[in-house]
């Protein structure tokens, strides 16, 4: 089942008004689209704080690129394509910072990350999703959470419909196998 949380035709009219400098349309867009973007960033194994930061970065990029939206095109793939670049930039930045990090022998108590506790709270299925490769998890978030079509996901990820189908299929297979292991049998394979 895929959901359609936002009507694209509504968004098209809001985007057109936003391009015409309508502040009310901007507020409405921020209100409607931000929850989707936040879920997308958190779906990329990101903490809430980092996701909030990325949400701000993403809106600044959307604002700077708003002239590249054409009213004849769907809004959701346009927004997700920008969100994807924002996430990729953040990922590169994080890798760069990690490479420069100095190893500290004893990390002070207060600086320990809360990831283990968060991991305990995570359900088994969430952990399975978190274990998927980034491209497959991203495809699942777009298809299942944002309710986008294969064509829209292909547009948002600058790939082809065939490549999206393949990534989704691989993600489903991996999840089916992991569920099968959890139950104690070999899992399903389709």
């Amino acid at each position: 089942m895929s959901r359609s949380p936002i009507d694209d035709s509504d968004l098209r009219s809001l985007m057109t008004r936003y391009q015409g400098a309508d502040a009310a349309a901007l507020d409405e867009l921020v209100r409607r689209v931000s929850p989707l973007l936040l879920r997308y960033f958190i779906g990329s194994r990101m903490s809430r704080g980092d996701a909030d930061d990325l949400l701000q970065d993403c809106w600044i990029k959307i604002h700077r690129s708003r002239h590249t939206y054409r009213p004849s095109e769907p809004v959701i793939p346009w927004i997700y394509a920008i969100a994807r670049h924002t996430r990729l930039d953040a990922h590169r930045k994080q890798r760069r910072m990690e490479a420069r990090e100095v190893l500290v022998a004893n990390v002070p108590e207060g600086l320990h990350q809360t990831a283990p506790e968060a991991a305990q709270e995570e359900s088994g299925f969430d952990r399975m999703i978190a274990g998927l490769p980034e491209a497959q998890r991203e495809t699942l978030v777009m298809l299942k959470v944002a309710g986008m079509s294969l064509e829209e996901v292909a547009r948002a990820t600058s790939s082809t419909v065939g490549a999206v189908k393949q990534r989704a299929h691989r993600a489903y297979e991996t999840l089916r196998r992991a569920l099968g292991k959890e139950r104690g049998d070999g899992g399903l394979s389709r």
Partner: protein
Amino acid sequence: MKRYGGRWARNEEMADYHAESEFERRLDAWAEAEQLEPRADLQRELSRTLRASLKPVKPLPSNGVLLLQFLFAFVACATGLIAILGKSGIHIMTAAQVGGMAAILASGSVFFALHLVSRIIPGNRIALPFWLGLALVALGVGAAMALLFPWRMPGAFVAEGWPCAVLELAIAIPAAAMFWLMARRGALFASAGLGAALMAPALCLALMADQAQCMFPQAPHLLVWHGGMAAMLIAAGAALGRIIARRLL
């Protein structure tokens, strides 16, 4: 045996059915999980920041118009360069050589222009992945040079070759800058792919002008001095894109 076998198969089918239902249920539950709402103060801050620079903007023209603009720039530059540099190379090539090279370079230019249009508009449809298209064009150019031209070694391979390579470099760099100026009207996200995507149409232009004036239509000369320089410049474009992406972060 048959009876037990049939029951076994039915049990397996039932198990598969239950497992699939369980999978669907958990996937849907995950998708429907907590609907995250951004913090109210964050939303207010976002709206306030964006409102501060809210001005009317004119949407970019359609993909077709953008494509025509790129192609017009390409044709105008190619015509001008051939007029300036001369077409003595064309006169000493056979019709098959001229036709083959022109067809491949023109197809490459259309593909790269199409790709640039897709790249500068977020969420645009991609017909063919860039690196696959680039590999096909490179293969086509290499095959045309190797198969349409004779395998004769010119007398002074280096002395005759390096001026062609330098000319290609001298055309490709400003042409890539011109395509960048045209592309930056859209949304550009620095990456290795963007560097290569800007360099690729510039190289088609440079190869076309270089070939038109080249007096050494032999496969080794073309592959090393024309094709080799093109490969180096594509790699340099990708490396530059990568460096800029890292520096920006």
